[in-house]
């Protein structure tokens, strides 16, 4: 019986899939943070290269992957698609569970799928240094890896709670040649402002983004790179879902359920958008696309669909997305990569249109699922990916009740080899089941995101 479904390097997709081409109406434009008017490409030129701005706004269905980028991607791509037979057996489910394993990349997650092209396009336009933020460290180490390959410098602002929790991620960035700074820091005005107000803050992705954007805007040779949320980031990740479609086709399968975890939304977009495209265009209208988020930061399930800033300081354009408010500092859950107040505008739009279905889980149940997965399939997943594992297990258990032999596909976005302190805390009974008190907030109508 086949466990892994593999593609040859020559079968790796040559184009990214742009879901904007298949939306029934165009996306709401990002708004300039100063004027509140729709942002134009020139507004973004001081922090992004032109080609990425073009991709951000493009409505072409497919965009070619440059040859040099494809060459580097073959270091680990195409990534394997696994059939999780041992998990299925343990769950006694008639469901077929498949997962795309993105932990095979050198930094250990899906993040280099976009780090490589982002570094490439920046270098092509003469940029020498990139500034970025990182939550759990997966993105920071991926951009460090990518910039190193293109002989560029890299500065990473890492959310302080993760910086303390995951020292090896920081070491990895150092190995790849990047500088890693705990955020908020005294290096930027926005970081300093936060520290003045709250010297003990655990930090957040929103704060770290402010710092990296400010760094890029204030250095001529430096651009900013974002590891999630934006359209072009989601675009670069679609190589995951396209590969999965080819791999499933090789065994004559198409998923009934597609699952991924959502922080900013890029790994989810990467797996789900090609399937969402099939759903929107009527090829497979019934696919259940599940987006999994933490109860502590339930952007899609409990947030508002509104224009909000992408960062705490209000330096980014306003984007129409699900948001808990840009000033919300999520509790320091172990899935640091899911601690983001907003979500990708594209993912948000699909949630708003009912194309995808968001669900939220608490920490302990998520780790329980991750442990079951490790004990059956062997892979210790990152706490972020564990959210997808949890939802896949729940779906499979539902199949056991109904007798339905559904095909479930989830994105296993990264390994947890730097996350053992989190597993240790789980086994010690020290994980807190955080919840966003949505009902209290909704009732008081106190939280309306600032819309510029």
């Amino acid at each position, binding site marked *: 019986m086949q466990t892994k479904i593999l593609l040859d390097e020559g079968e790796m997709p040559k184009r990214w899939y742009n879901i904007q081409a298949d939306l029934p109406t165009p996306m709401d434009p990002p708004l300039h943070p100063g004027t509140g008017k729709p942002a134009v490409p020139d507004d973004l030129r001081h922090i992004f290269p032109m080609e990425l701005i073009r991709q951000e706004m493009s409505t072409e269905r497919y965009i070619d992957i440059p040859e040099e980028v494809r060459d580097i991607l073959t270091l680990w791509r195409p990534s394997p698609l696994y059939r999780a037979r041992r998990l299925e057996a343990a769950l006694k489910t008639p469901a077929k569970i498949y997962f795309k394993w993105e932990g095979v990349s050198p930094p250990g997650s899906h993040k280099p799928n976009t780090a490589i092209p982002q570094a490439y396009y920046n270098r092509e336009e003469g940029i020498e240094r990139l500034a970025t933020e990182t939550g759990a460290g997966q993105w920071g180490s991926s951009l460090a890896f990518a910039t190193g390959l293109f002989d560029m410098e890299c500065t990473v602002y890492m959310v*302080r*709670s*993760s*910086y*303390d*929790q995951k020292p090896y991620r920081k070491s990895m960035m150092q190995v790849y040649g990047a500088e890693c700074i705990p955020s908020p820091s005294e290096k930027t005005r926005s970081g300093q402002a936060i520290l003045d107000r709250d010297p*003990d*803050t*655990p930090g957040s992705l929103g704060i770290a983004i402010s710092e990296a954007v400010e760094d890029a805007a204030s250095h001529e040779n430096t651009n900013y790179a974002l590891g999630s949320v934006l359209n072009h980031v989601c675009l670069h990740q679609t190589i995951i879902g396209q590969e999965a479609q080819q791999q499933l086709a090789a065994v004559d399968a198409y998923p009934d359920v597609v699952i991924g975890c959502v922080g900013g939304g890029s790994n989810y977009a990467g797996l789900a958008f090609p399937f969402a495209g099939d759903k929107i265009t009527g090829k497979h209208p019934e696919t259940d696309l599940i987006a999994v988020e933490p*109860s*502590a930061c339930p952007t899609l399930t409990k947030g508002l669909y509104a224009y909000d800033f992408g960062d705490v300081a209000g330096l980014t354009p306003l984007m129409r997305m699900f948001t*808990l408010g840009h000033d*919300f*500092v*999520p*509790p*320091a859950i*172990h899935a640091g990569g899911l601690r983001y107040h907003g979500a990708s505008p594209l993912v948000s739009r699909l949630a708003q249109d009912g194309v995808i279905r968001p669900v939220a889980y*608490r920490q302990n149940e998520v780790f329980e699922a991750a442990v079951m997965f490790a004990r059956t399939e062997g892979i210790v997943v990152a706490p972020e990916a564990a959210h997808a594992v949890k939802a896949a297990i729940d779906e499979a258990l539902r199949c056991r009740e109904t007798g339905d032999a559904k095909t479930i596909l989830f994105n296993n976005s990264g390994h947890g080899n730097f996350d053992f*302190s*989190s597993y*240790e*805390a789980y086994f*010690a*009974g*020290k*994980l*807190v*089941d*955080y*919840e*966003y*008190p949505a009902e*209290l*907030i909704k*009732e*008081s109508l*106190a*939280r309306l995101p600032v819309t510029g």
Partner: protein
Amino acid sequence: MTIVGFLVNPIAGMGGAVGLAGTDGRAAEALRRGAVPHSADRAVQALSALRAGDIEWCTCAAPMGEDVLAAAGIDRSTVLYRPAVPTGAADTKAACRAFLDAGVDLVVFCGGDGTARDVFDAVGREVPILGIPAGVKMYSAVFAVNPPAAADLIRRAGEVPCRDSEVMDVDEEAYRSGRLTARLYGYACVPYIAERTQGGKQVFEQQDEERAKNDIAAFIAEIMIPDTLYVFGAGSTTARILERLGLLPTLLGVDVVRNGEVLARNADERTLLALLDEHPRAKIVASPIGAQGFVLGRGNQQISPAVIRKAGLRNLIVVATPGKLAATPLLYVDSGDPALDREVGDSLQVVSGYRIAQRKRVVQTN
């Protein structure tokens, strides 16, 4: 060099084994029933770990301290108080006063809730206090979880922060007849060490109780709805909310606020019911009290089943700091109305920060 005042309530804990539920005023009866004083054993266990420590010990004569220190291998101590035998509450208080006069940095006592109350009576918040658990019931939050934890806290008393911890007044007469009435008696300063097993993040969220209280207060203040009656239960976390609103809280009692105005201070059940008649739209904001974390019942008796039913259980907002929640893995309800307790269900959302809550398991005592 830390100066520690140490006393033992030699009769604490004897009542439990012989079915007396507390030894207040019943020492002779407990001894007659064959109880063996064992509080000394727990204290010896804690103190023997401190033999080599840089601590100057002040204590009381014979069974009230000196003997225990000697048994723990600590032979250098200053006896500041000589009790009458058998010892009683007056001796505990007199010993504490002698410790304060001698300028101790910390008062360590071995006993139960009754001893805690007596120590708190004499020491107040002048210096930190710490209990080595030895009593029958431990509803007060001033006790270390076990003797080794107590030793660790004593050793590091000079460097670790203190937090407000509830001293509970348990009516032993009522308890012996099967009723538990535990009233919030006051807040002592107790040294504590933040949980560090979870790495960086827990430290951020647990080490600073004051920050957590401020965050909770800011959040509740932000979500308060106009023309709604707010019943604030006892405790320092709810008190911080009133302070945030610019109001003067009753630390140990229940206060009622509407549209930024205090309608009743230290209200009893009747007052609460009358106010609820007048203003049916209401919220109850309560914090778990005591070492066990009682959300309803103990410590907040004024917020009776009738009061809760009138306001509606769904209008109960529970608040607690992450530090408190880490110390109470389960929450308890004991409203006095088992049907109401059951309606609470098996878990509660507890607001623990600014727009942050935790889901906590609830245990019903009935």
